[in-house]
């Protein structure tokens, strides 16, 4: 592991207009020191009202996409955009929507922004109209009615904006919420571990943001900076900067969403220099069959990791940190495609302003204080759920290559998004294998498919830092054993995924397949694909 590559240095150097290398150096020192005293803000948790308040999705009749002021930093109101719902006389911001499989959701989205928007229900199987993407965006002052059934199994889904070209800005300014679907398996786990929502079963939405000198959210990117994606100067968890959380010595469930525009994390729980074991119990599409013991896992933008942390394994009362371990962010955009050696031309990433908090840098995210508590004797169940059988298609896979045109434009098979074109058509009710091949001259891409979930069959040519975490089963990572809607594909890596295009809809249905680095999505690394009879 090279802690400070030339590219990272160049990225930091050119980001100096925002923060300066002095800023970079102090960040390195503060984060290396894991100074507990810098984490002084209580983690925001879903409450009875306000931010992230839980509410039954079927009770929500209207979501108003609003511009308002919100104290992201304590006592410093900042312009902020939120999904606002009024339910039972309470005003909810980005509410945590709760549902069960089979629930009917009917609600109206009202756009009070000064630009078009549309809500995408990330991970859910919907017809194209209710899926929500740019072709259905509505202008300011207009509304859009959703009516759909929750067809999917229990899992941590989420909802966010998906207009053409400006999804990154809208998500960055605050628009994102969770949609948690629960079922009998979930309730069995709650009982086994004595979990309570918002107390010991906690969503953690990780997002990086930048603030100006007055503490207001700031999203400024030059066109060339869109090439790498937005990297913020502060990491927020549940919109809390430098957060802490007081915990008992027991098992906690953390439903982790990487809601960042572009940044990936290598998640671990650390007490001092010691990494604690934790257990992966679910992914984008819900519970795994068995818990997977881990010490670290990568999470790309839009992905979810559902984990259990047993704080009885922590020693003494030294705080535990959720942190992102250092990793090579692999901004290999200018390497030679055939040999993988560094190119001699201009380094596209050098134009990227990292704002001082470099991609791949070690950083603490959340301080967990361990408090004295009553004895807790529960054990993690060995069986969690049953996944649908993995049925891979026979024959050659459909190849989708991720790359760029050396002019600053990312693409898929050379295609860039055109709302009037669907370069891929699949037959309803059939199975396909897709081979996602990321070029060597590339960067990691979190690839997201609308309309369907998938299973990962194989990873090949993974970089060493990914291979080190792989199982002996076809190079798969532990999270690859779950149902996914987003997969992080590293430079040079090939990932085979299995899709089953069976759904309860008729007629032609168009969906999106795209990179969930939102700046990549906004600049065209997206294609429409059609499901037809």
């Amino acid at each position, binding site marked *: 592991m090279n802690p400070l590559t030339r590219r990272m240095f160049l990225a930091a150097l050119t980001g100096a207009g925002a923060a300066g290398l002095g800023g970079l150096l102090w960040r390195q020192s503060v984060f290396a020191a894991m100074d507990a005293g810098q984490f002084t803000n209580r983690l925001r948790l879903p409450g009875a009202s306000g931010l992230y308040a839980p509410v039954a999705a079927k009770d929500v009749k209207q979501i108003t996409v609003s511009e308002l002021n919100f104290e992201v930093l304590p006592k410093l109101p900042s312009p902020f955009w939120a999904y606002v719902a009024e339910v039972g006389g309470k005003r909810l911001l980005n509410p945590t929507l709760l549902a069960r499989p089979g629930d009917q959701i009917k609600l109206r989205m009202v756009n009070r922004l000064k630009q078009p928007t549309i809500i995408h229900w990330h991970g859910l199987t919907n017809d194209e109209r209710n899926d929500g993407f740019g072709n259905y965006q509505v202008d300011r002052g207009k509304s859009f009615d959703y009516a759909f059934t929750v067809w999917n199994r229990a899992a941590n889904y989420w909802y966010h904006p998906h207009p053409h070209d400006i999804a990154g800005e809208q998500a960055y300014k605050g628009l994102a919420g969770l949609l948690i679907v629960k079922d009998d398996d979930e309730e069995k786990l709650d009982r086994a571990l004595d979990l309570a929502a918002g107390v010991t079963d906690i969503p953690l939405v990780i997002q990086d943001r930048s603030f*100006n000198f007055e503490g207001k959210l700031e999203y400024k990117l030059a066109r060339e900076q869109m090439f790498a994606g937005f990297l913020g100067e502060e990491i927020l968890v549940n919109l809390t900067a430098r957060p802490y959380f007081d915990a008992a010595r027991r098992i906690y469930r953390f439903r982790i969403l990487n809601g960042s525009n572009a940044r990936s994390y290598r998640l671990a729980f650390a007490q001092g220099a010691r990494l604690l074991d934790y257990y992966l119990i679910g992914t984008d599409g819900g519970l795994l069959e068995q818990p997977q013991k881990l010490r670290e896992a990568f999470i790309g933008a839009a992905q979810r990791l559902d984990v259990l942390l047993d704080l009885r394994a922590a020693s003494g009362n030294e705080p535990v940190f959720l942190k992102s371990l250092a990793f090579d962010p692999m901004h290999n955009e200018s390497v030679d495609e055939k040999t993988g050696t560094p190119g001699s031309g201009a380094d596209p990433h050098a134009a990227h302003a990292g704002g001082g908090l470099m991609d791949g840098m070690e950083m603490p995210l959340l301080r967990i204080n361990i408090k004295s508590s009553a004895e807790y004797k529960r054990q993690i169940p060995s069986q969690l759920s049953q996944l649908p059988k993995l049925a891979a298609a026979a024959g050659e896979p459909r190849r989708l290559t991720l790359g760029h045109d050396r002019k600053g434009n990312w693409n898929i098979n050379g295609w860039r998004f055109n709302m009037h074109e669907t370069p891929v058509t699949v037959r309803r009710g059939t199975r396909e294998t897709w081979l996602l091949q990321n070029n060597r001259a590339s960067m990691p891409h979190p690839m997201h498919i609308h309309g369907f979930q998938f299973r990962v069959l194989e990873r090949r040519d993974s970089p060493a830092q990914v291979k080190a975490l792989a199982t002996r089963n076809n190079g798969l990572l532990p999270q690859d054993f779950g149902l996914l809607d987003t997969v992080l594909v590293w430079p040079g890596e090939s990932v085979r995924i299995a899709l089953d295009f069976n759904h309860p809809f008729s007629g032609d249905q168009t969906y999106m397949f795209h990179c969930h680095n939102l700046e990549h999505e906004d600049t065209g690394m997206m294609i429409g694909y059609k499901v037809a009879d």
Partner: protein
Amino acid sequence: MKSLLNAAFLVSFAVGATNALANHHPGAHQPDRVQAPAAGQKTGKGTGLIQQIDQEKGAVTIKHGSLQGLNMPGMTMSFLVKDKSMLANLQPLQKVDFELTYDGRTYMITKIK
């Protein structure tokens, strides 16, 4: 644009290095060094967001707007404070107004709230 960014970087780096040296200079942040502005000493003021507090060094890192009186654009810098007790009630990511002096070598915060 890039040259401007690099210039800002060089200024920031140079200032950071200067302050880092000052931190290691015996008596560098003794209050009596800054009680009366010396000949040629400049004063300025600004607003910013605290990034980090170093109690031990008696320094605070601030992302600030342009500094009036010092002809300095907005950036993130580490400053010594006149007295470490000035740091007692400060928090990371707090917005502050501050005044400072510059003697050609060291920036020193004299008031912060």
